[in-house]
Each structure stands twice: as C-alpha cells, then as structure tokens.
C-alpha cells in the first residue's frame, strides 16, 4: 500500500512521459539521423556525413527562405508587439464598450491562418482587391501590387500575419496592464506625473515578463508559419516568399528528397532552440533565486 502511494504519481505520469519521449524526442533523433543520410523517396539509414547540410546551404532557395524568415520574423514580431501594445493602452483608457471592442480586435485570432491567407490574397490581388477598388474611385495611377512583386511579396505575408496576431498580443498586454498595482499609478497621478510618463516609466517596465511571453509566442508562430504562406502566395511569385517550413514541405512531400528535408528541419529546430533556450534558462534560474 505504501509502495503504491509513493509510486502513483510516477505511474500516472509514465504513459505521457513515454509518449513524449518517443514521439517528440525519439523522432527528433530519427530526423537527425536521416539528415546525415542520402535518403530520397524512402528513408535509408546509411550515414554518409554532412552532404545534406552542404546541399542545403548551397541552395539559393534555402537562402531566400532564411532571409524571408528573418525579414518576416523581425517585422511580424516587432509590428505585432507595437500595435498590440498601443491597442492595449488605448483600450485601457476606461472607454465605453470596451468588451465589444476587445472581442473585435481579438477575433482574427479565432480564424484559421488558411482563411486569413485566402481573404488577404483576394484583397491584395491587384485586379480584384484594394488596387482595383482605389482605381475605381478615380485614382487611376494608384498601385498596390506587392503580392505580384517578388521583392515586396514577403511584406504582404507580414501584413496578413500582423492582422491576425496583433489582437492576441493586445489581449496579453491588456491583462498585463491591468495587473499593475493601481496604488502605484494613483500615487504617481497624485504627484502630477503626466500619463505618458506613467506608462513609459512605471507600467511598461513592470510588464517585462509579458513582453517575453508575447515574444516567445510570436517567435514560434513566425518560425513555423506555413499555412499562411501556402494560402496567401503559395511561396510565389517564383519562390520569393518561401519560408524554411515551406521549403521543408516541398523537399519531403513533393520532391522525394527526404534527406534534404530532414536537414532543413534540423536547422529550423536549431533556430527555435537559439530563441527558446535563453528563455528557459532565465525562467529556471529566476526560480532558484
């Protein structure tokens, strides 16, 4: 009986622990193994060295995908955070119908990225969407054809991504703003400190953990972005809007080049680690203090 009492927690956790061990870490290990082989249609297990990584970094398409990830990641995270923060601050001004407005801004997050991508594809199509509409109003020289321009197309993904995510960031920040101790704010107001100073000097600095959470959520959304690109541009024009995830999919499922797909998946995982590990480190350390 005592034995059972002591071991029940372990027994209860064991199945999920084993499942995670196999299906997450086991398959990461499998992918790592395959990335060192010459696997094509089916995986084979003869290790041949780093040829897949050499091919990967010699591929101009992978270079485009990494550059796009950088551009998209920085702009998507940056703009979503700034917009989300501003919206949260505006909503925090004790305005009327805050509940309704909050729902409206949060709603895009409820849509799947496929829907967002398809809707924006039509809006951004120069012959059907915004350009055609503004021209219809009489501005004949108006141009907004980013989606067909290989140099600008990646920014259309940023637009759609920001539209989708900034409401969610707003909700995070709003919760953060509300959690700041009201007494401190009142004390500042009594001292005659202007509102914008209250925000920049007191409230925002005390929200640092929220910034970190928002950053982590947005960063992993950016890295695994796949459906948005597929729906909005299909990776095109050409492969101008390819991201690492769409590259990996093309290699694994369209081209029968599993070794190459595994190598790109491993690189993607390392990018995620580069972001998440410092976060975990700081989290774990702060608990020991």
């Amino acid at each position: 009986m005592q034995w059972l009492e002591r071991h029940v927690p372990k027994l209860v956790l064991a199945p999920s622990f084993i499942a995670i061990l196999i299906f997450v870490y086991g398959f990461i290990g499998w992918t790592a193994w395959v990335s060192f082989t010459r696997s094509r249609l089916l995986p084979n297990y003869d290790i041949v060295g780093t040829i897949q990584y050499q091919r990967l970094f010699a591929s101009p398409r992978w270079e485009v995908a990494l550059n796009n990830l950088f551009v998209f990641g920085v702009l998507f995270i940056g703009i979503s955070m700034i917009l989300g923060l501003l919206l949260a601050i505006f909503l925090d001004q004790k305005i009327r119908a805050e509940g309704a407005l909050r729902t409206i801004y949060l709603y895009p997050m409820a849509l799947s990225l496929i829907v967002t991508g398809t809707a924006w594809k039509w809006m951004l199509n120069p012959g059907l969407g915004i350009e055609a509409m503004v021209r219809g109003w009489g501005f004949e020289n108006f141009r907004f054809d980013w989606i067909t321009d290989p140099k600008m197309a990646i920014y259309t993904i940023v637009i759609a991504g920001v539209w989708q995510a900034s409401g969610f960031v707003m909700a995070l920040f709003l919760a953060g703003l509300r959690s700041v101790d009201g007494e401190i704010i009142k004390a500042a107001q009594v001292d005659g400190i202007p509102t914008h100073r209250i925000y920049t000097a007191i409230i925002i600095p005390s929200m640092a953990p929220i910034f970190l959470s928002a950053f982590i959520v947005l960063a992993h959304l950016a890295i695994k972005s796949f459906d948005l690109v597929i729906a909005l541009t299909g990776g095109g024009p050409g492969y101008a809007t390819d991201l690492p995830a769409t590259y990996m999919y093309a290699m694994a499922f369209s081209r029968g080049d599993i070794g190459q797909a595994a190598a790109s998946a491993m690189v993607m995982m390392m990018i995620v680690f580069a972001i998440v590990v410092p976060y975990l480190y700081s989290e774990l350390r702060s608990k020991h203090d």
Partner: protein
Amino acid sequence: MTLRMTLAASAASLCYASVAMAGPQAEVLHWWTSGGEARAVAVLQEEFAARGGTWTDMPVAGGGGDAAMTALRARVLSGNAPTAVQLKGPAIQEWYEEGVLADISAVAEAEGWEDILPASIAGHMQCEGVWCAAPVNVHRVDWVWANKAILEANDIAMPTTWEEFNAAAEKLQAAGITPLAHGGQAWQDATVFETVVLGLGGPDFFRAALIDLDTDALTSDTMKAVFDQMRVMRGFVDSNFSGRDWNLATAMVMNGEAAFQIMGDWAKGEFLAAGKVPGEDFLCASTPGDGYLYNVDSFAMFTVSGDDNIAGQQLLAELIVGENFQKVFNLNKGSIPVRSDLALDDFDSCAILSANEMTATSEAGSLLPSYAHGMALRGAQAGAITDVVTAHFNSDMSSEEAVQMLVDAVANSL
C-alpha cells in the same frame, strides 16, 4: 423449416463470400477524384468487377498527388503496399530501386504491349528490362490554345515559330488584348519553359539539356536564348497572373480576355466542358518547333503476396491497356489512348492531331518526356530546374545569371 432456410441462406452467402474472396483482388491507390477522372476510374472498376474481381478503392485526393505519395510511403514502410498505384515517369524506377515493384512481364507479353506502345513510352513502363507498370493515357504538353475570334479579328494566324508568336503577341498587345493567359505557379512557368526549350533548341537539345542534364547544353547560348524568350514572354502576361490556377487562365482564353495559352491538353477538357467546339471557338496547335512532349499517367504494380492478389494485379494490368478502357477513359479525360492501334472515330480533332503526331514523332525519335510534369527527371532534379525557371520568370534576373544558377542547381540536386 424457417430456421433451416435461414441456415441454408447464410451458408449460401458464406459460400458466396468465400468465392468472392478467392477471386482476383486489387487495392488501387489513385488521386483521380474529380468529375471526369472519377467517372473514368469507375469504368475500370466495373470492368474489373465484371471479370469477377473485387476492387478496393483507395482514393487519396489533394496536393496533385503529394498526399497520395505520403500515404503510399506509409503503406510501403509498414510492409503492406497496395496492388497498384498511380505513379508516373522516373518515379516508377525510383520505387523499383526501393525493391517494392512487381514483375508483370507475363501480362505484357501476352498482350503484346511491345508492339502497340510507342517505344519511348514503353521504356517508362519497364524497370531494368522487366515490365513493372501499365500506361493509362497520353497527355500532350506542348500545346498552344487560342481564341479563334480574337485571332481572326486581328488577322493573326496560328504561330509556327517563336518569332511569329512574339510578333502576334505584340500586335495583340497594341490592340489592348492580353496575348498570353498564364498562371504564375512554378509548374506552369516550367511548362512554358520546356516548350520554349523544345521550340528553340529542337529535340536533340531538349534531350541533352532536360533529360541528360548535360552541362554544355545547360550553359549553351541556346539556353540563354531560351531564357531571353522567357523574359519576352513575361511581358505578354497580364499583371494579375501570380498564383492563378491554370483553368482560370483557360477561361481567359475562352472569354476573349486573352488570346493564347500554353498548356497541356487537360485545358481542352475545360473548353469542351464549357461547350466550345475545337476549330470553331478555339484552336489547338503544337507550340512552335518540332517534337512532342508527353505526360503519361500509369499504374505501377507493387509486390503483393497471395494468389488472389497476384491474379487481381494481372487482370488489372490487362484491363488498363485493354481497348475498351483506353477508349472510354481517354474520352472522359481529354487525353489520347496510349496504344497506337485504336480507331479514334469518337475523338475530337485536337485528339486526332495529337495521336497522329505521336506516331510521327515516335518514328522520327522526337517523342520526348515532359520535364515539367515529372516524366523526364527525378523529383529533386526537376524541382531544382523549376526553382531557377520560376525565379527567373518572376524577377529581373539576366539570362546569363539564370544559366549559371541552372548549372549550380542541377549539380546541387544530384
């Protein structure tokens, strides 16, 4: 009494069931799930059932076959491959090298496939000398489709050289008509590209560049001229072309918004479905230059165990190349029969033109596999070339840069 009858009935049905189990069995993995294609597969199913077989359908729609390939990979890895799988081109040999394809030479020899199939197409169905797949149809890829009314109104004949095409396109552009209906998807860019390679370089150059991946051919001035022509043609498409599906481009030709489309003969199905008549509403001709690019669908036969499964596989192979299925399927799908001994009375004029030119080019040695549709090269190589073609078409890259990128990409994909 009643009990005895019930018992007898159930015994009879059991007998029936076990008889059916002993008959030929086939599990068929394919992605023909839409309209005419689904009807065409149903024809094969009925024939199979009429010969006493049990057909287990395994349609996997989506992604132009990507989803089906994922399903196939899972089935093969678990040691439980389907009887027959819709596969084409070098993918058949790739699967053969994985050691999972069956030998159906007995059927092929009994049916005389060697004599009724064009030699280059027969080559795709053989793996190291043994027959391992059955061909279903022939799509021609190097077609140019045109709106007849537009051409007549602007006094333009079907172009027979790429200069004529360019001249016609400029004339149309001056008249305010989009010359080329095109969808900016990588495979469509590649389709246009390969017709230009064939037209400007000729069959031998096509073979050297896109089948043998010969470095000299890939870096030659001819290849630069091909990219120059692609750049010219980029100017002939409208500004909304990015990401457009091919059937929407076909509709542009149908509705008189554009004059030409370069696309395989599945585009004909769109015209016919809209009630258009070849020769009256729309025109079909091969793209400028000699040769014939084919896209042949086929079923690869996987290794199965058990007599009923092997019997089913052989019956299936026999029926696929059989006269009835070849005719009915291809009338539904818009392609032409792969066997050259069929009467083509029920087919339209474009199909008859296609069949005649297939026979002629087969004798002249210019019947060639389409690279853009996965007939000429393995997935990784074809994909690497398509990346360059679409990157060039959708940017301001120079032809010299494109040729250099092409060589690097091909080397990197091997």
